[in-house]
């Protein structure tokens, strides 16, 4: 756990980078520091490994004041990843990764074996071990940077805009990699970014800064989207936060309607009898085959099977219980019928959800969020 107590950093020219910061990063969680440039988020990060010394206040790492630790030793227990990778150009990939183990006095063989292990962990080929950094792509360099930071298995990982310098596709895959690594390793991670999307994607907690080094809100991402503390936070997270926060709500609460769903061998007459404006036709495996509007069926003979009627494509379905409400809403928006098709894990149709049903599920989720917030603040008052 990392704790900031009334930490201020004032530079010699009088600029206040961080102003009386109180912040707690729980062990094993990812805390994302996000805010406009010059808000003090990077200064905050660099104070943790003493690249920057605070003017006032104290920082505790697992209860120990970091001022009481020799900087070089403190730093060997804290992994550090930066934007431009900062790899040593004159060392091979494996020697770069082995840096901290070697500093800690490991034998070379053991350090290199560890480096090989880490290459695999960050999803890189073993063949890269003997290459030099300039022979790698930007994304590969960044992965090596992460491997190097993890080499001595430090409990804390600091990441300063680690994915900003790569293209969006590579960035997304690096973020996914970080999430899966973190699921396995449970490090205490502090990550700085200016990208609120990245913060929401990778953070367990997000600390949103105002300009000039004060915090606007510290909250889990779903709460930041659902209940921004003020207009500044609402503005920073963006106008579509209402839809984005649905990524954090599952579809379990959604009520699915099976009545507009009919198999391909059902007749047109049966479809008309269902009394629905649209019918979702399924194939022999009960997978969605297409939508058909009942008004177009009136001209067809009543005994025609639905399988022979022209249908419109489903777009995409959502997996009930696993996918988020955002996926379900998207499925409804893209569907010609304006309804989302819910399927089970095997892709078989369970039923459909209309906009009304989606809205009901969203409102139910909001009520739960408000309740839990009330619970949180009641708990906070008790402390």
């Amino acid at each position, binding site marked *: 756990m990392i704790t900031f107590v009334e930490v201020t950093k004032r530079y010699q020219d009088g600029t206040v980078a961080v102003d009386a910061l109180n912040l707690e990063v729980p062990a094993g969680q990812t805390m994302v520091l996000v805010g406009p440039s010059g808000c003090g988020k990077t200064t905050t990060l660099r104070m943790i490994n003493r690249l920057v010394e605070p003017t006032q206040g104290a920082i505790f790492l697992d209860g120990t004041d970091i001022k009481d630790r020799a900087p070089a030793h403190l730093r060997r227990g804290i992994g*550090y990843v930066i934007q431009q990778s900062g790899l040593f150009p004159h060392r091979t990939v494996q020697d770069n990764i082995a840096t901290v183990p070697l500093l800690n006095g490991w034998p070379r063989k053991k350090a290199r074996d560890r480096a090989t292990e880490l290459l695999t962990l960050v999803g890189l080929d073993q063949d890269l071990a003997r290459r030099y950094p300039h022979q790698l792509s930007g994304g590969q360099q960044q992965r090596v940077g992460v491997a190097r930071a993890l080499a001595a298995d430090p409990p804390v990982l600091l990441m300063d805009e680690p994915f900003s310098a790569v293209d969006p596709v590579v960035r997304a895959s690096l973020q996914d990699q970080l999430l899966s690594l973190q699921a396995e390793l449970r490090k205490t991670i502090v990550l700085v970014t200016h990208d609120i999307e990245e913060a929401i994607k990778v953070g367990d907690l997000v600390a949103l800064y105002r300009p000039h080094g004060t915090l606007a809100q510290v909250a889990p991402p779903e709460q930041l989207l659902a209940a921004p503390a003020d207009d500044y936070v609402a503005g920073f997270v963006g106008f579509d936060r209402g839809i984005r926060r649905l990524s954090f709500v599952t579809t379990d609460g959604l009520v699915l309607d099976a009545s507009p769903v009919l198999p391909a061998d059902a007749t047109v007459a049966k479809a008309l009898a269902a009394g629905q404006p649209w019918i979702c036709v399924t194939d022999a495996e009960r997978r969605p085959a297409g939508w058909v509007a009942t008004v177009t069926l009136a001209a067809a003979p009543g005994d025609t099977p639905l399988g022979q009627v022209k249908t419109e494509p489903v777009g995409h379905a959502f997996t009930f219980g696993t996918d988020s409400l955002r996926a379900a809403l998207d499925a409804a928006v893209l569907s010609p019928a304006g309804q989302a098709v819910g399927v089970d894990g095997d892709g078989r149709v369970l039923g459909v959800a209309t906009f009304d049903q989606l809205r009901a599920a969203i409102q139910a989720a909001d009520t739960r969020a408000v309740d839990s917030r009330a619970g949180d603040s009641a708990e906070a008052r008790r402390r």
Partner: protein
Amino acid sequence: MMWSWIPSNWSLIWQLTWENAKLGVLPALYGLVISLPLGVIAARWRWFYPPTLTVINILYAVPSLALFIALIPAFGLTDTTVIIALTVFSLCVILPNVVAGLRAVPAAVTQAATAMGYGPLRRLVTVELPLAVPVILAGFRVGVVASISLASVGQLIGVSSLGYLFIDGLQRSFPTEIYVGLVLVIALALACDLIIVAVRRALTPWAAS
């Protein structure tokens, strides 16, 4: 051109070439050794560099012969006089490269090294200086070549080098000797240059071609 002069004076030519090589390489090496600590200081404490550079430029402007003569009272008509003077000139071309090389180490790299727990000295020796090697050796090349060519001037105060062939050839109106001296000075400089390039390639396998 009297080709037969060459084989009959083979041992003299060899000896002069060898002495010229010594007078070229040793000052450059001494210059490198002195430049490294000075360069490290100049790269770390920025105020140190501008006055140092001024002194160096003034020294570099002094004609080589004048510097030899100025050193004679202390060191006499010896190799030492020439070596000291040429060391000063080498220093003048190598030191700026040491400073430039150290300053060109990417900030991200030094910051990463510090953040991983390198102390300042260890970082200097194992990260910054190795990364500055290509730029430092570029200065060293110029230092060696300049010293090899300036060493002939030492002949004027009686210190033996390929310069002997120029003076002797001139006095005896014997151009063959002058041509041989000229070709050998250039060949020697070229050979030393190629050796340094080979050494640099071996030291920096990581540099992008």
